[in-house]
Structure formats: C-alpha cells, structure tokens
C-alpha cells in the first residue's frame, strides 16, 4: 500500500512548493490534488499550468495519487436545474482531463446530494444517468471515477448494499467506490463495506471517527487515526481479504491547533503502523 495526503491540508502560507516538500519529508509516496480547493488548482488552471504542477510533484519525488474536487457540494450532479448538472459534468470532465495530465488513473467525486428540496427519488436516477455519461469520457481516458461515500452528509446511499446496487445500476467498470473509512460513522462498519465492494474500490481515504458523538453541532466527529472508534485491525484484514493494495490517502478533518506540520508526520507514522500490521 502507498501513502498519500491531500494538498487541501496545506496551510495557505505554505503554498504548493513548501507543502510538497513537507509531504515528501514526512514520508508519503504521493499527493492528492483537490480541484477547486486551492489557489493553484482551479477550473481556470490551464493545461500548461497543470503540467507545471506535475513537474513540481515529480521534482519533489512524489506522484499524484488521485484528483479530487471540492465543487460537487455546490454543483451536484443530481441538481434539479439542468444548468447546474451541466456545470457538474464539466468540472468532473475537467478532473478526468487533469488526471491524465497528472499521470493518475483515479478521480474522486461526491455523486448525488439529497436535500430537503431535492428528494432521494430524483437524486438516484439523475446521478446514475450523469455517471453513465461521464463513464463514456472516463473509459477512453482510462481514468476511474470513484464515488466517495459521504453518506451522512449526502443523505444518500447509506448502506454498503445500497451503494453496490447503485454501482450495478451505473454499470460501468470505470465507476467505482472511493471508500472513506471514516465516513461510515454509526451506520455501519468499514470492514463490511470493504468486503462488499472489493475490486470496485478505486482509492481509500483514511481518518478515524468517534461514533458515539454522532453528528452534533459544529463538533467534528472526525479525529486522527487510532483515536476514534474504527476497528483498524478488522479494516486491515478486510483489505487483505479483498486484495486491496492501493493508495491510502489521509484526509484529516480535525487539524492540529499548533505545529500544524506535525500532523503530517504523525499521520504518516500511523498509516505505516496500519500497513505493517502492528496494531
């Protein structure tokens, strides 16, 4: 397994270059680039500028593990307004294009957003249809679209079986699951998601979660690895069982209040412990 971490964790004052240097120094193998979340990688970033980002990643001795986006929440593929859906299709298409330039074969999307206004029964078919169309772009580019399980925030596809049926309905080998083992909260167990989805897992986000806290107010339920309620031994065994040997990408939502760079080192060390099985 290989370690990666998102560039959305870089402090603003670090910039891309200093952030990359820290990632390398902390022992990661790769970097996850977030389209729309940082000043250096937006929808306005040209192909030439994306190539320059790749050069910097290469020079730092890293690779791009995947391309994620922070735009799906405001421009969901499941929006009622076809103009918004067109925007979603456009930014996901751009993700696919940039993934090719950056030399990675996976992107992350948050597909489908159920709200009070946009009900589940609409979101489901619209999201399936949107992903089927995007799969036609992803296939020739040989880039896999990983739909992240942000179940609680999306209010969508809450169980692993439901998610499986959804992917069955999309019906493309180019659309799979970007599993976040910290996003399952108290509605299930990540190790069971891993067993059910196996080869459909495109990438994995790692963080820990405090299930007992639920989703209350502004207090984050997320925490650093091994501080929460995930059963990391069971998760590791499930990965072994299904043969997942790909990227583990740190996505820490709770940030250190002081010495922020320390979180990069601590998380890298925790992932190493997880991979080595010293749990």
């Amino acid at each position, binding site marked *: 397994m290989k370690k990666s971490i998102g560039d959305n964790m870089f402090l603003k004052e670090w910039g891309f270059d200093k952030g990359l240097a820290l990632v390398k120094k902390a022992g990661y193998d790769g970097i996850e680039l977030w389209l729309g979340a940082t000043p250096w990688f937006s929808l306005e970033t040209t192909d030439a500028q994306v190539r320059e980002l790749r050069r910097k990643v290469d020079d730092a001795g890293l690779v791009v593990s995947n391309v994620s986006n922070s735009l799906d929440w405001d421009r969901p593929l499941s929006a009622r307004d076809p*103009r918004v859906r067109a925007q979603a299709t456009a930014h996901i298409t751009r993700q696919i294009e940039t993934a090719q330039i950056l030399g990675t074969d996976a992107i992350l999307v948050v597909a489908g957003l159920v709200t009070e206004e946009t009900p589940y029964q609409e979101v489901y078919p619209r999201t399936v249809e949107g992903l089927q169309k995007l799969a036609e772009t992803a296939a020739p580019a040989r880039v896999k679209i990983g739909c992240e399980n942000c179940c609680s925030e999306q209010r969508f596809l809450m169980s692993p079986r439901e998610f499986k049926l959804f992917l069955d309905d999309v019906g493309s080998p180019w659309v799979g699951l970007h599993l976040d083992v910290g996003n399952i909260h108290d509605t299930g167990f990540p190790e069971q998601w891993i067993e059910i989805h196996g080869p459909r897992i495109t990438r994995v986000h790692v963080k820990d979660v405090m299930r007992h806290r639920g989703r209350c107010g502004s207090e984050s339920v997320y925490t650093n690895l091994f501080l929460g309620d995930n059963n990391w031994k069971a998760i590791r065994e499930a990965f072994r069982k299904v043969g997942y040997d790909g990227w583990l990408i740190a996505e820490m939502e709770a940030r250190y209040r002081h010495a922020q760079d320390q979180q990069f080192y601590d998380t890298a060390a925790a992932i190493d412990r997880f991979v080595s099985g010293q749990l």
Partner: protein
Amino acid sequence: MGLSRRNFLRVLAAAPLGRALARADPAAPPFGVTCALPESRAGFARALMGQATPLVMALPGAAGWDDAIERHVRGGRLVIFESGAAFGDARCFAEQRAGLRSAFGLTIDEPVRLWSENRPPYLDLVWPAPARIRDFSFAIAVRGGEVVGRIGGLPVAALRPAGDGALLFLGSPVGPALGHADPEARAWLASVVDHPPTIAARSRSAAGAITRAAPAAHSATTIAVNTSIV
C-alpha cells in the same frame, strides 16, 4: 458520423429552418420551442410510451415560443405547455411571456424560487383529476384562464380554451415526476390524455360558447409526444 434522430431534431429545432418549416406547414410541430428540461421530456415520453395521442400535444420544459402553438390549439388539440422558462435564459422567458399573452391572454410572472419562499413543496392539480405532485424548485405563476393547479396560494397551472382546443399551461414541471413513476403524476397525465373528447363541453362551461370542428379534421396527424418535443 453517427447522428441520432434525437440530435438531428435538436439541431433542426435550433436552426432558423425550423421556423421556416413551421410557417410553411400549419400542421408542423412548434419548432421554435426548445426544451430546457430534458428530464421532463424523458418523463413525458416514458409515461406516454406506446400511446397514440392525436388530440394531445405535450411541450415539456418549454423554453421560448412559437406561433404554431396557437394554430395547434385552435385546430382542436389540447396542448400541454409545461414551461421550462425558469431553466432558460431571459430572452426565452420574454418570448414566452409575450407569446402566451398575445395568443391566449395569459400573463405569467417571473419564476419564483419556491424553497427560498418557504412554500409547501407540492403542486396541487385539480383538473382533469386531482393530483399532488412534488414541486420542482421553480414555479411560474399564471393569470388568466381557469386555474387548475396551485402551489400553496400561487396559481401555477391554467386551462385556456381557444378555438377548438385548449392550452394547459403548467408553471411547475410535472415531467420529472412522470419519469420517476410518481403514481399520481402518471394517473393525472392519463386523465389528461383521455380528456380531449370532452374538452369542448368543459371549455364551454368554463369560458362560454365556443365552436368546435369535427375531430376528424385534426386526427390525421398523430404527433407522438417524443417527436413533438423539439
């Protein structure tokens, strides 16, 4: 080059040639109207799959306007005009507003974003059968004709007889609910499709005496819903 029939129709609808054809042939579909809500078109097509609907023409998610609509109505059709103006540009809305006023005396308001107004999320239709259908975020209020549907207190659906037919204006899309197999939406549309034989009587009682030509005069052209939507 693989050009599907649907794409060909889209291209045709966007071309000035479409309007020219419509002027040349009074039975031609209203090519000047485009669909701003493909999901709605798919919903109508799915709900009416396999049904011949010679007396009913549906224009789901309609953006813009075409004078041919008036000809179809006066010629004896029930035209379901589901406005998609909230999903089009300002020019389309202005065109539609002017067309509805000029041809049918209907006045439409600017689209209202229902969820910012805290309105109840259902469209209540009362004609030809009662149905409660979830709203579609935007609605266009209509004045004139007989109000046959409201969202809260907002009149968003109206029936306007003209000539031998009638226009059914829908300011809140129902097509997406048809596509998602909402049973009330499906039953409502089935009632509408079944309704045309009695529309003349309904129209007389609603708007005074009108003259109606024999149905045979307009039964020659069967416009399936999925081909009349351009």
